[in-house]
């Protein structure tokens, strides 16, 4: 637990980078500091490893004032990941990762063995061990940066805009990798970003800071999106916070329509002849996987003639945001729900999803406390 207690940072020229900030950063979770440039988020991060000394206030780790330890010992007990990775260009990938273990006095063999293990953990090809940083792409360098920070297995990881300099596709991959690694390691991670989407994707808790170094709101991403504290937070969240908030609503309670789903071998004459025959039906293969949409009165039975069903959503795993997205993109306005094996569970129209959203909101308001059942997903 990192406790930031009433911390301020004023510079000699009178600028206030951080203004009386108090923040409790829990273990085993990712806490994101987010805000516009000049809001003091990086300064706050750097005060935790004393690269910046606070003008007033105290920072404690597990109750102990961080000033009670020698500064380099403190820093070696925390991983640090920086924008552009900041790799040592004169050292191989393996030796970059082995830096802190070596500083802690590990033998070269042990440090390198640990480094090799970490390369695997962050998804780097072991063949890169002997290469130099210039031979790697930006995304790969950033993976090395993460591996280097994790090398001595520190309980705390500080990440300063770690993924800001890579392209969006690579960034998404790195974010997913971080969440996967965090699931395995359960560190106390402090993550600085200016990107609200990234904050909501990776954060368990998000601290929104405003210019002048003041805390605007500290809440879970879900709570942030559903009830921003003030106009500043609301504006910073962007125009589509309603849609984004759907990421935290589960599809589990969604009512699925099974009446418009038929296997490819069904009696189409009979279906077309029904009085309540649907205008569009979803045709599945023998195993129950979706093949496409068809008008039962016009379809001749050729799979090639089906209208593509587009992407599906997995009930329980995907959020209502994904379901709504699929429905909006579907040619029939209905999204195809599948189970983990890819078999069709039913379809859901936009109205059904909208009803589910309203129901979930009502439920949420009744509970008022965000429960553990919420899905953490931006998939």
């Amino acid at each position, binding site marked *: 637990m990192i406790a930031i207690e009433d911390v301020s940072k004023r510079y000699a020229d009178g600028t206030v980078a951080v203004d009386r900030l108090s923040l409790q950063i829990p273990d085993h979770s990712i806490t994101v500091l987010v805000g516009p440039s000049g809001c003091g988020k990086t300064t706050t991060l750097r005060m935790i*490893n004393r*690269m910046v000394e606070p003008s007033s206030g105290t920072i404690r780790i597990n109750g102990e004032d961080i000033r009670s330890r020698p*500064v*380099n*010992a*403190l*820093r*070696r007990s*925390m991983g*640090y990941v*920086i*924008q*552009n*990775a*900041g*790799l*040592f*260009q*004169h*050292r*191989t990938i393996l030796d970059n990762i082995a*830096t*802190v273990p070596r*500083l802690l006095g590990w033998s070269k063999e042990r440090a390198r063995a640990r480094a090799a293990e970490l390369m695997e953990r962050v998804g780097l090809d072991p063949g890169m061990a002997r290469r*130099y*940083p*210039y031979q790697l792409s930006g995304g790969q360098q950033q993976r090395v*940066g993460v591996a*280097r920070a994790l090398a001595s297995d520190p309980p705390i990881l*500080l990440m300063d805009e770690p993924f800001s300099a890579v392209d969006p596709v690579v960034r998404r991959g790195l974010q997913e990798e971080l969440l996967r690694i965090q699931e395995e390691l359960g560190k106390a991670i402090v993550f600085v970003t200016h990107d609200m989407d990234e904050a909501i994707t990776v954060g368990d808790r998000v601290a929104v800071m405003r210019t002048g170094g003041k805390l605007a709101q500290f809440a879970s991403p879900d709570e942030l999106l559903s009830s921003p504290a003030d106009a500043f937070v609301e504006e910073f969240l962007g125009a589509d916070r309603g849609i984004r908030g759907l990421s935290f609503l589960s599809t589990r309670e969604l009512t699925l329509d099974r009446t418009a789903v038929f296997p490819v071998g069904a009696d189409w004459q009979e279906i077309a002849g029904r009085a309540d025959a649907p205008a569009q039906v979803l045709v599945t293969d023998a195993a129950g996987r979706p093949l496409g949409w068809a008008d039962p009165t016009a379809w001749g039975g050729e799979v090639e003639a089906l209208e593509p069903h587009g992407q599906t959503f997995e009930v329980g795993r995907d959020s209502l945001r994904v379901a709504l997205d699929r429905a909006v993109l579907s040619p029939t306005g209905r999204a195809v729900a599948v189970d983990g094996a890819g078999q069709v569970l039913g379809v859901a129209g936009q109205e059904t999803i909208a009803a589910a959203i309203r129901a979930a909101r009502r439920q949420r308001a009744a509970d008022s406390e965000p429960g553990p059942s919420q899905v953490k997903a931006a998939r």
Partner: protein
Amino acid sequence: MNGFFDIPSDLQHSYPGLISWHMQEALIPVLVGLLLALPIGLLCVRFNWVYAPVLWVTTVLYAIPSLAFFVVLIDYTGLSRLTVMIPLSLYSLVILVPSVVDGVRSVPEETNAAAAAMGIGLVRRYFQVQLPIAVPAITAGLRVATASSISLVSVGALIGNQGALGNLLTTAMLYHRPVLAVNSVVTTAVLAVVVDALLVLLRRVLTPWQPPSARRAGRGRATTAGAARTPESVS
């Protein structure tokens, strides 16, 4: 070229002996200059304000003609090799301090921040992170310093025959054997070229981490900047 390698006995050295003497007198000062430049560089990097006065003092020293320097030193160190090597050490220092400081300053900010954040202390950071990354800039400075040092040793011939290969120049005049002067000039030039090539090789060996494009461009601005201000263009 009759008698090209026929060195008069009063020089008390064979041709290879002269070369070895010349190299010692030229390279030891460069080494001393480098060893002094590293801690001075650390000071300049740590305390930014030190750099300007250091640069000012060294530049003034650089402006002193080598011969004048020798003459002043004779009072203290006599007609010895030391009298030649002390000014050469200072000249090397003048070239190497900016090379070291500029090289260290060119280390990317995020590399320094990452090193600090990992708990690498100031001195360790300087020697293990910043200096290795500054190697291309430092070798560029070393090349200028050694070339200038190798040529300047010859001036030592004027103070008690302490000029190694330069002594051939005075002897050539004494015995009216111009071929000895040619020998002196050619040998000095060849030595300078060979040492320069070795330094390039050294840089290649020390910097396997440089992208190939940077390796080709690695001649460095220090070479051109330094060449414009060799001491002999002053004296």
